[in-house]
């Protein structure tokens, strides 16, 4: 079996490995895994099919003699994917403190519920009379989301956070156009998620930045200054990406509404305030909810995501189809505009009704926790982030001073000043310690940002180990052991990958002829 090295990492293998090479290149149970194309052989197959009977081909010149797909036996396929999965790092394997991503545990009860035949084996084109239970579940989940957010309406169909942002902003645009009030600008604070300005731009808006004040939050005065008759909306994340609660959110909402604009809240960080504050009480007009963050459905490769959007009274009529309507004990999926009284949907975003499997998991999470449990999960998430903050504040530096954070704690790289060690080195060294790195270099407003979100899933014991490991890395960075960071990871299957070359010269297609040549 020959290994095609085209597009493979070029740097040396992780340290420790080179001391005692093995014959195969494998390291005990860590197998050097080739690509499927290199495992397979066109002569092999996993199934024994009858030879096709002689027939007149109607493909003509379109027929190809070779299609270049690898042939593999079933054991080869199984081993390939199991080996790849063993190289994966997941929330089920260890701490995954990726800030602003809320990588919390995915309870197995959720999985069990999603596999019930009445939810798992149904088809979106079945007659509605045969899927009443599924429609009731969507309606029940919608009611929970409205209760938790204090909002008037909800669209369940968006399939991810950014999809939800688009839904909410499209509804805002429709509401303004319906009043004959076309506006051209959306305000976005500097610390926003990158998807916010992208959403605004996709809908044809110009983006106007709102600078943050010294303490990392948005000031109502800065918003008032940026507001004008051309401003359609503000897109604000609360708690923001610095892990701080926007304490002037009500004043900001009032100013926005006074100027005839609407308030879109990015709900990516909703996990910090569930059961504590309702966005509806804060003056929010639209907010997407990442079920795959706040409500524990899988993501980060294990998805799919799901991003329902909640609306205020003013925007709710413009929510897209389809949606579920309850009449007594009967549930109907409304598919067309005008079918419900007063509804003026802006359109539809999805072929069907959304991520049914994620709806089941999210509702299972909510019902198994109950209202008190959801509130406690938020409290524990905030407590854990502050426990990490308190455990590291004397050796790492916080950009906005030592103050209570929400569900994530933000450090900058000033504690690494003059050490020659960067945020990237620090993140790579965390891999050696068996942790997924934190979010790095985001938010952009903070130099060398390190954003840590432990979530409520971690026990005190695992947080203590995490804190102790990070303290030890800081000691190494400031002492005579810098190579432990600048050369990290030393113990991963591959050492430092060439991210720049991967971005500049991506090899997107495997080719047997010219393995070494990079595709432009």
């Amino acid at each position, binding site marked *: 079996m020959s290994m095609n090295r085209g597009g493979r990492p070029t740097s040396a293998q992780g340290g420790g490995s080179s001391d005692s090479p093995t014959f195969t290149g494998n390291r005990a149970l860590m197998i050097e895994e080739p690509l499927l194309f290199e495992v397979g052989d066109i002569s092999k197959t996993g199934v024994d099919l009858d030879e096709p009977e002689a027939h007149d081909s109607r493909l003509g010149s379109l027929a190809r003699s070779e299609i270049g797909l690898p042939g593999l036996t079933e054991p080869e396929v199984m081993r390939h994917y199991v080996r790849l999965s063993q190289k994966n790092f997941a929330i089920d394997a260890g701490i995954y403190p990726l800030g602003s991503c809320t990588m919390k545990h995915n309870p197995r009860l959720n999985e069990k519920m999603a596999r019930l035949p009445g939810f798992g084996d149904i088809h979106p084109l079945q007659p509605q009379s045969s899927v009443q239970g599924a429609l009731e579940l969507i309606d029940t989940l919608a009611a929970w989301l409205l209760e938790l957010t204090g909002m008037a309406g909800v669209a369940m169909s968006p399939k991810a956070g950014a999809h939800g942002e688009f839904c909410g902003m499209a509804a805002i645009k429709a509401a303004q156009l319906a009043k004959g009030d076309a506006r051209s600008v959306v305000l976005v604070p500097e610390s926003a998620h*990158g998807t916010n300005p992208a959403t605004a731009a996709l809908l044809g808006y110009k983006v106007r930045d709102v600078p943050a004040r010294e303490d990392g939050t948005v000031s109502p005065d800065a918003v008032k200054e940026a507001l004008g008759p051309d401003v359609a909306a503000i897109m604000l994340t609360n708690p923001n990406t610095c892990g701080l609660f926007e304490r002037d959110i009500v004043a900001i909402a009032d100013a926005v509404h006074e100027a005839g604009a609407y308030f879109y809240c990015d709900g990516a960080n909703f996990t910090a305030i569930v059961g504590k504050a309702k966005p509806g009480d804060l003056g929010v007009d639209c907010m997407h909810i990442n079920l795959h963050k706040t409500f524990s459905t899988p993501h980060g490769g294990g998805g799919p995501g799901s991003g329902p959007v909640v609306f205020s009274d003013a925007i709710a009529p413009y929510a897209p189809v389809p949606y579920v309507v309850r009449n007594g004990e009967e549930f109907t999926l409304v598919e067309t505009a005008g079918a419900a009284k007063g509804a003026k949907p802006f359109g539809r975003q999805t072929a069907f009704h959304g991520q049914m499997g994620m709806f089941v998991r999210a509702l299972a999470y909510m019902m198994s926790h109950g209202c008190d449990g959801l509130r406690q999960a938020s409290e524990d998430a905030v407590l854990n982030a502050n426990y990490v903050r308190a455990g590291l504040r004397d050796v790492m530096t916080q950009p906005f001073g030592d103050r209570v954070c929400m569900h994530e704690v933000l450090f900058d790289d000033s504690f690494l000043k003059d050490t020659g060690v960067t945020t990237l080195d620090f993140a790579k060294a965390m891999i050696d310690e068996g942790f997924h790195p934190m979010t790095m*270099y985001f938010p*952009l407003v903070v130099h060398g940002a390190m954003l840590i979100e432990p979530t409520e899933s971690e026990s005190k014991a695992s947080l203590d180990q995490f804190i102790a490991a990070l303290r030890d890395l800081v000691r190494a960075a400031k002492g005579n052991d810098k190579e432990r960071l600048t050369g990290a990871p030393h113990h991963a299957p591959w050492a430092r990958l060439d*991210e*720049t070359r991967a*971005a*500049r010269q991506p090899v997107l297609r495997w080719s047997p002829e010219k393995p070494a040549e990079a595709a432009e």
Partner: protein
Amino acid sequence: MAEMKYTEDHEYLRVDGDVATIGITNHAQEQLGDVVFVELPDVGKVCAKGEEAAVVESVKAAAEINAPASGEVVETNSDLESNPGLVNEDPEGGAWFIKLKLSDKSELDGMMDAEAYGKFVAEQS
């Protein structure tokens, strides 16, 4: 003789008559890290001061290059599209982004010269 001007957004303007050659400073490329992608405007585009003129993307971040002054894009540096790494190698030389025909040279009045920009960078770090 060309005159150098600098903005607080770490852009430089090499002004020669009414045409300014615009790029990002050495300090800016250091902050961005390895540049992997550059998007340039069409020649002929008319930019208002502060309007987005180009986009630069590095392994760490994506950033807009806003037109530091109003004018019409008369030339772009297509070398950057095939070799974005030039921004790291020669930011204030071969890796200029656009040449802008200035519509109002008085917009340059408040900008920093090399000495003032050097001080500005020193104060920031």
